[in-house]
Each structure stands twice: as C-alpha cells, then as structure tokens.
C-alpha cells in the first residue's frame, strides 16, 4: 500500500471522529490551565483581604471627603433646630474625625473675610479632597459659637483645634490645622467645605 493510499484511507474515516477532534480542540482554546486559575484566585483573595483590612481599620474613605451621609445628617438636624440652642453642636459630633483618620489638614489661605477665612485644601485627608475650598470660622465667646454654629450647621462641618496661626493668617499663607474632637478645646474652628455658589 502506497503512502497516497494510506493517506486516502485515513482521510475517509467517519465524520463523527473528525468532528469530535475539532470540538475538543475548540474547547481546549477556552481552557485555562489550573496553575493560572490558582494564581488568579489567589490574587482575587489578596485584593479582597486588603479591601477588608482597610474597611475594618477605618482608614480614610473617599466618600467622606465632601461630607457623606453623616455630615449631611448633621446639617439636616441642625437646620431643624433653633440657632439659639447648643444642641446643634452635639449633632456635629458625627463629623469629628475618628482616631485612625488623618487628623491634619493643610490649607492655603485664599481670602480673609470678616467672619470667615476661605482656604484651599492642599492635601487630601479623611474629610476634604485636595483642591476643594473650605470656609474656616472661629469663635471666642459662647455667643460667637452659637451664631457661627447656626450658620455652619446649615452646611457641613467638622471641628478643629484653635491655633493662633489661623487667627493671624493672611492671604497666601499655607498653614496646618489639627482636626479635633468636640470639647477638647474651648476655642474651636468650624471648617466647612464651601459649596459652589455659596
């Protein structure tokens, strides 16, 4: 038997065997080796673990940057109360940075107004996005506090520790403010993300 005849004989085998091999080859092309699958699974697990770790440690979360649900609730609650009461300050507690959140806020003074200092955030922290504009208010007396708080509560607010640097700041200065828990310092700032048009 010649090579040609052998070739011809093989060429005439049943169609089902030709199809079977073609189907198998097609499915092999979609086949991912087990080693690759393991690597992909391990990578996915690592990503999930890191994400969970961040979540559990309370590391800065971007949603809070411009005042999230908590700050919004603070504003809403304050809006529904008379400005003379101090209860609205308590409502702002939720906006005080937590222990693990970035405590420092670096800003550049843009404008000094009578009751407010307008500043630009230089570095993102747990509450403020880099480049956003904030209004900084300070009070020296209880009446100041009440008056300013009423205004502040209509927007979103966090507290910061008093610093002479802020009081003496002029336009163009770059200063660092420590965000604070309420009650630690009698002279506190209220810092509000300044909304567009406000």
């Amino acid at each position: 038997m010649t090579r040609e005849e052998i070739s011809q004989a093989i060429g005439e085998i049943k169609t089902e065997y030709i199809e079977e091999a073609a189907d198998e080859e097609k499915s092999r092309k979609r086949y991912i080796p087990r080693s690759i699958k393991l690597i992909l699974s391990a990578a996915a697990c690592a990503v999930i673990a890191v994400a969970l770790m961040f979540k559990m440690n309370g590391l800065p979360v971007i949603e809070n940057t411009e005042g999230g649900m908590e700050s919004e609730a603070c504003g809403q609650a304050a809006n529904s109360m008379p400005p003379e009461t101090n209860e609205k300050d308590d409502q702002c507690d939720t906006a005080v940075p937590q222990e693990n959140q970035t405590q420092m806020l670096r800003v550049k003074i843009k404008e000094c107004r009578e009751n407010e200092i307008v500043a630009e955030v230089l570095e993102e922290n747990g509450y403020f996005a880099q480049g956003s504009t904030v209004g900084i208010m300070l009070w020296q007396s209880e009446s100041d506090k009440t008056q300013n708080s009423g205004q502040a509560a209509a927007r979103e607010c966090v507290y910061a520790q008093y610093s002479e640097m802020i009081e003496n700041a002029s336009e163009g200065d770059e200063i660092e403010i420590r965000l604070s828990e309420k009650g630690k310092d009698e002279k506190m700032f209220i810092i509000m993300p300044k909304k567009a048009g406000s």
Partner: protein
Amino acid sequence: MQDNQSTDKKIIELFFARSEQAVTELADQYGTGCRRIANNILNNESDAEESVNDTYLAAWNTIPPQKPDPLRSYIYRIVRNIATARYHKNTAPKRNSSYDVALDELEACLASSDTPENQLSAKQLTEQINRFLAQLEKENRILFVRRYWYGDSVSKIAQETGMRSNTVSVRLARMRSELKRNLEKEEMQI
C-alpha cells in the same frame, strides 16, 4: 454546537441563494481550520493558501446540490483532499512537513505485504481504522485523529492538551501497535 449549527445553516442558505457572501462567511467560520490542515500537510504558506481557495471554489461548485451536515467536516475533508493531492503531486519528494512524519509513522505500522492479493484497498483500510477508532478511549481517539487526519505535530498536540511531547509520542506508538495487531488478528495482512 448550537451556534455552529445555526451558522452552518445560514452559510448553506447563502450558497443556495448563490450569494458570494457565502464564501466570505465560510472563510470567517472555517478559514483558520482549513489553513491549519493545509499547512500541516504542505508546510508551505502559499501552497496552503491556494489549497484553501480551491476549497472555497469546490464548496461553491458542490453546494448546491450538496447540503452537507455537518458543514465543518465537509469543508475540512475537501481541504485535506486538495492539500494531499497537491502534496503527492508537488512536494512529496521534499518530505518536510509534519504530515510527512505522520505518514512515515503510519507506513511503518501498516507495512505492506509483497503479495498483491493480501493487500487491502484504501476503502477496506478505512473500515479497519474506523473499527479500531471505535474501540479507543475518546482521549486517545482524538490524539490519533489530530495526528493522522489533521496532521498536527506531536509538539502542537502536547502543547494544546497539556501533555508532555514524550507522552503523546508513546501513546501514538502504542495505538499504532494496537492497530497493527488488530489488522493481523483479522488476517488482513497489508
């Protein structure tokens, strides 16, 4: 499979409507497979390409009246026949394709008897091979068909199946021995 069937049906309808789009669709669907088979046999890109084009022409000339089902095997058979005819006519003396090696392996296995009365016809041999393939395990049968029908090289089969080349070679050698024993058992000396 469902997708293949509906695509095949659409292609055949285009052939029956004598639309040239049929050839374009056929090339999209089975062009890669056809080129692979032709190239395995001929080991020459331009010869393979010509064989594939001849295949499309043959399909155009035979559908209709033919209404092949499955279309894939029909087209693959055509391209294999055209490529092997070209191989035996032009390139056999060169013996440089993976198909050459495959044929060498089979030739050694199906060692021919000197007496013409003991020789099998190609048709009889096909029947023997079909019976042999039917009794093989699916995995081995696919190895055999890929090597001796599609003309795939041992290294390519090994790469795509995740086996070592040596394992593929050993399995094929065992299958050839088995085939030879089967033929001898039935006193069909080749």
